[in-house]
């Protein structure tokens, strides 16, 4: 006969940590994540061959938080992290796979409004447009107040 001991206080209840079912602990990757990795590889080929950037919207895919972590684990950490300060703080991190960027856009309240993997040499939101360069130059010239004549004038 099994004798059951009465539990004396909350401290008598042992804490058991559920193992996280991720690639790091199981060594396996879910089918959905594998499909995304194959798609990323195909987009990297396209970028290398044709120079065409691509992206995969993570919010439109039926992914659990574990799936997302598995994907992040599989891509690994990279060496570049970019912070965008514009109506909220957004981050773009290069993963361990060069040319694969993990982007999370947030609004002023910190809410996630877009999350996607971008496959590009440089994230497409970053490069400055020619008009912006001209406006910048104009603003600098206005700022110096005619202390030096504009170049080319």
């Amino acid at each position, binding site marked *: 006969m099994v004798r059951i001991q009465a539990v004396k206080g909350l401290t008598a209840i042992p804490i058991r940590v559920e193992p996280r079912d991720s690639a790091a602990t199981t060594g396996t990757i879910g089918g959905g994540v594998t499909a995304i990795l194959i798609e990323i590889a195909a987009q990297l080929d396209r970028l290398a061959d044709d120079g065409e*950037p*691509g*992206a*995969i*919207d993570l*919010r*439109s895919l039926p992914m659990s938080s574990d799936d997302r972590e598995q994907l992040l684990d599989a891509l690994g950490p990279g060496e570049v992290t970019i912070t*965008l300060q*514009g*109506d*909220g703080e*957004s981050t773009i991190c290069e993963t361990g796979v060069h040319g694969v960027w993990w982007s999370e*856009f947030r*609004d*002023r*309240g910190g*809410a*996630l*409004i*877009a999350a*996607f993997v*971008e496959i590009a040499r440089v994230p*497409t*939101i*970053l490069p400055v*447009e020619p008009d*912006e360069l001209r406006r910048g130059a104009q603003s600098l010239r206005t700022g110096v107040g005619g202390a030096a004549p504009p170049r080319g004038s």
Partner: protein
Amino acid sequence: MADDRSEPTIGEILQTHGVSRRTFIKYCTAMASVLALPPLAGRAMAEQLLAAPRPSVIYLSFQECTGCLESLTRSFSPTIESLIFDIISLDYDDTLMAAAGAQAEAARDKAMKDNYGKYIVIVDGSVPTSDGGIYSCAAGRSAVDILSEAAKGAAAIVCVGTCSSFGGIPFADPNPTGAQPVSALITDKPIINVSGCPPIPEVIAGTLLQYVSTGTVPELDEHRRPKVFFGNTIHDRCYRRSFYDEGKFAKSFDDEGARNGWCLFELGCKGPTTYNACATIKWNGGTSFPIESGHGCLGCSEPGFWDKGSFYSPLSAPRWGKAGEASPRQVLEVAGAAVVAGAALGVASAGLSRRRQRQKEKLNADDETEEG
């Protein structure tokens, strides 16, 4: 270079407001995600919007509760309405505008005259037609008259909310004011219905952004709703769907099934017949939606939702079914065959629900007999 354009582009307006290109692309990327477009389409959308003229918008409020406008302007994130108000020129909205009386009416007249054929009319609320339309008047004119005049020069009409789309609550039986949806009165203009009581703010913003960026009416369903938002039922995208498939149902709001998060079908959830994006875009900045908060869907984005019996009767009740646009009243009696069939295929609960419905009807009949 001389520029003879009289109207500034959206890009010029944003620059004036200090919105950077990157910030604008950021929000267009987010909106592309909402519209189920590829993320990089956000950049293309941003470029199209930056070069587009800022459209004049006339917002007409008739028989409504202002919940739809509240949904848009008091959304969880302050960025949605600021984005939308940066890309449109809201020239008339009697709720939001500072002007009142003759000044407000003059602003609307001027906007219609200056932008004839190009402006967008947003309608919030149904239009009463009984007794000469006296049940909704402004500046001595009936809603029918104001709508007819505004529609003449409109490029398109966007009906925000179930009232303007399908009649909504004012249209509910016995409809004492003769309330009608816009589509029953205006037949010669493109009409986009953004239904919901209220609609999801991202759906309102996304529909307007898509129209302004492309200049074309998006693909619509049979009720003139944008398919991108109304292409799936709540049930199809519900995170509790697997419990429906397994036949696990909450039987009351406080039983074990409810605590376990099981399907709310038997508690009257109208998700299987309701087309909307609540289960994916969700509410309050993506926090949750009614089913996630433990209550069934009311079906508020569907025609005649107020007249389909109790919100707590299971869907197998025979009054639920497919609704028609031109005459929403007629469709309430059409049987929801597809829904019942789907339920029967998925689980045995449909039969159970029908039995429950019959029991309820019998109980009601008995009560009436006793009262009589």
